[in-house]
């Protein structure tokens, strides 16, 4: 029977609760968003006592279901001031699943200046003063923790940025090998909520745990087999090499950064602070470039080379889109993973085309505990304001390093989020929705994602409803007017399916396959149904999550006027297609009109 661990930081106590029957089917994002919406005062200050952190492994985490070890972290966001769920791989979800923990709810905040860690193992919880863990870079911290806790635990928590309540702070997680703290539930400033409760880490040891039992084992096994086969056979999510030894799966070979060149060609790659849709240096920082440098350093340094592609972000992953970028001159681990969004935020968006500079900026974010998308956009504000130049990788690195100095105002500002920094620096082109910075698809040529950015409960978020292709096709209305497609319906359908997947524990990337392949879809739905012993309607389940999130945001004070893009997207045409975002307010309001 799954349990809830409820921790009260006011008096440093905890209790185990049964999962109430009304929450029986909830996990992952459905669990975090339900508890946040039912238990957190929508008007509360996100960095004070009344906010809560809710952590939940996806429903199937810890089972043998392929790519099912995702973790959801939820709270009221200090960045958006609305509800937030951020999602990550790493070790913790699998381990919590194996300990039978459906969720952790953290309430209150302690008095005094101590820093704490929460240590979880089979039926045990300890809230421990760990002042020695505070103030450390996260590479050092995760290494230290694996020495202190030899059972190779999952670790999540906040770094220096979160400990200083910076709004760009993400929740880090260690990777499977504990060589990088780069598994981030990055968005929305949730690292700062950890910091506000003076929690540096949550350490999860599952050595006495076991895989959770599905209600219908036969159907579960049959379903996950179907899904696994569909994933492995799909050219995007498939295995690393085909039967003849040639590169096959796009994600396994090139990671999510496979998108760098292709979105560039489509003219939707936001460049130098959303001024162009094409970046002349895209190929140099692309997934293909990472693949090339990994092969090159392997050839040169043999077994001591640490660069990787086809790397798994969590134990059950079969898609393996993660990577490790090596230092070119030594072949040693520089940073992992370098994702598309990060290569864009810290590369393309800053006009930086040196892969090693981008990797270094990524490593600094991982070490400081920062969301790369928010931080890249924040550095772009410094460039937009003329403090440093677009394209100057070394200046960006020096700027970010100032964040280690707690007395540095520039250091604080670079961690404060795009909106805060942009306003402080007098920038008027600030790419945020609901206070959260836009990711790596320009909403002008890719209008469907623009609708998702505008209407998502999470602020500008590409993962909330990934509607890229149809809209790119409709860029020029050549084949048909893109308006003929019901964008509101498209966006809502994708947002609800996304909410379901974010709750199942499956990685959102299975969508690339399951929406193409009926067997894959049946495998996904069948495995969730078999696990719960219930027939769950995908869209209804997802819509119920969205509804709760919308209600929370409404009570927090959000209205339709917040479901808009910044003005410059409506007025500045983006080359090369020279289009503006021209979806009307009425069309945007249609997305959630009848919810």
């Amino acid at each position, binding site marked *: 029977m799954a349990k809830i661990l409820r921790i009260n930081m006011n008096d440093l106590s905890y209790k185990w609760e049964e999962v109430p029957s009304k929450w029986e089917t909830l996990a992952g994002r459905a669990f975090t968003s339900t508890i946040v919406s039912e238990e957190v005062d929508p008007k509360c200050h996100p960095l004070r006592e009344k906010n809560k952190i809710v952590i939940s492994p996806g429903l199937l985490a810890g089972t043998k279901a392929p790519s099912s070890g995702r973790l959801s972290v939820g709270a009221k966001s200090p960045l958006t001031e609305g509800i937030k769920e951020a999602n990550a791989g790493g070790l913790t979800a699998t381990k919590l699943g194996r300990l039978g923990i459906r969720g952790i709810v953290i309430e209150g905040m302690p008095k005094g200046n101590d820093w704490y860690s929460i240590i979880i193992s089979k039926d045990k919880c300890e809230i421990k003063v760990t002042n020695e863990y505070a103030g450390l870079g996260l590479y050092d911290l995760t290494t230290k923790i694996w020495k202190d806790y030899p059972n190779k635990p999952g670790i999540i928590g906040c770094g220096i940025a979160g400990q200083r309540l910076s709004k760009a702070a993400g929740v880090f997680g260690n990777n499977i090998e504990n060589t990088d703290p780069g598994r981030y539930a990055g968005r929305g400033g949730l690292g700062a909520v950890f910091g506000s409760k003076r929690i540096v880490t949550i350490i999860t040891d599952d050595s006495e745990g076991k895989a959770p039992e599905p209600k219908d084992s036969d159907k579960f096994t049959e379903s996950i087999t179907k899904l696994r086969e569909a994933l492995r056979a799909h*050219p*995007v999510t*498939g295995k690393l090499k085909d039967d003849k030894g040639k*590169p*096959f*799966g*796009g*994600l396994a*070979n*090139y990671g*999510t950064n*496979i*998108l760098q*060149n*292709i*979105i560039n*060609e*489509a*003219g939707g790659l936001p460049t130098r602070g959303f001024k162009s*849709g*094409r970046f002349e240096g895209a*190929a*140099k920082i*692309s997934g*293909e*470039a990472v*693949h*090339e*440098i990994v092969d090159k350093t392997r050839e040169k340094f043999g077994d001591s080379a640490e660069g990787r592609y086809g790397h798994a972000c969590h134990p059950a992953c079969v898609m393996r889109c993660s990577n490790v970028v090596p230092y070119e001159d030594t072949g040693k681990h520089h940073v992992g993973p370098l994702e598309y969004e990060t290569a864009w935020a810290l590369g393309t968006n800053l006009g930086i085309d040196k*892969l090693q500079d981008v990797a270094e900026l990524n490593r600094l974010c991982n070490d400081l505990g920062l969301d790369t998308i928010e931080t890249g956009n924040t550095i772009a504000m410094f460039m937009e304001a003329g403090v440093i130049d677009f394209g100057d990788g070394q200046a960006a690195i020096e700027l970010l390093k100032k964040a280690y100095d707690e007395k540095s105002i520039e250091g604080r500002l670079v961690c404060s989020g795009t909106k805060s920094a942009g306003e402080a620096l007098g920038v008027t082109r600030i790419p945020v929705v609901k206070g959260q910075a836009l990711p790596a698809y320009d909403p002008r040529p890719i209008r469907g994602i623009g609708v998702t950015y505008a209407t998502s409960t999470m602020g500008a978020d590409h993962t909330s409803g*990934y*509607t*890229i*292709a*149809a809209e*790119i*096709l409709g*860029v*020029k209305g*050549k*084949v*048909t007017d893109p308006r*003929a*497609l019901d964008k509101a319906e*498209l966006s809502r*359908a*994708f947002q609800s399916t996304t909410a379901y997947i974010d709750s199942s524990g499956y990685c959102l*990337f299975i*969508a*690339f*396959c*399951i*929406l*193409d392949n009926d067997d894959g879809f049946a495998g996904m739905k069948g495995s969730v149904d078999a696990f719960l012993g219930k027939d769950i309607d995908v869209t209804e389940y997802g819509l119920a999550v969205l509804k709760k999130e919308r209600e929370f945001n409404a009570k927090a004070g959000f209205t339709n006027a917040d479901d808009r893009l910044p003005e410059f997207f409506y007025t500045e045409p983006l080359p*090369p*297609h020279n289009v503006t975002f021209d979806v009307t307010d009425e069309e945007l309001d249609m997305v959630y009109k009848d919810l």
Partner: protein
Amino acid sequence: MVKGSKASEDTILMVEFVKGETFAEFIRRMGLTRDELGDCFIDGTLTRPQSELREGARVALFPFNMVLLCGGQHLKGHGYTRDDVDVDYY
């Protein structure tokens, strides 16, 4: 196709223009087959087999496993990569 090309650089090949040539005819001329290709573009717009090339066009070719990572092509009316789907809005 291009000697000395690198994954970390754009590979550019100048090709003679043939008036009235469609994308399907063009890739045949290049010695490629449809199943070797993923999403491809003409002047930044996703192409279909019957799309016609114009003089001076920028044609972008991506291999079979490089697509817009979208999923749900049949729902969203994807152009080139999927021809075995029931519904194609385009």
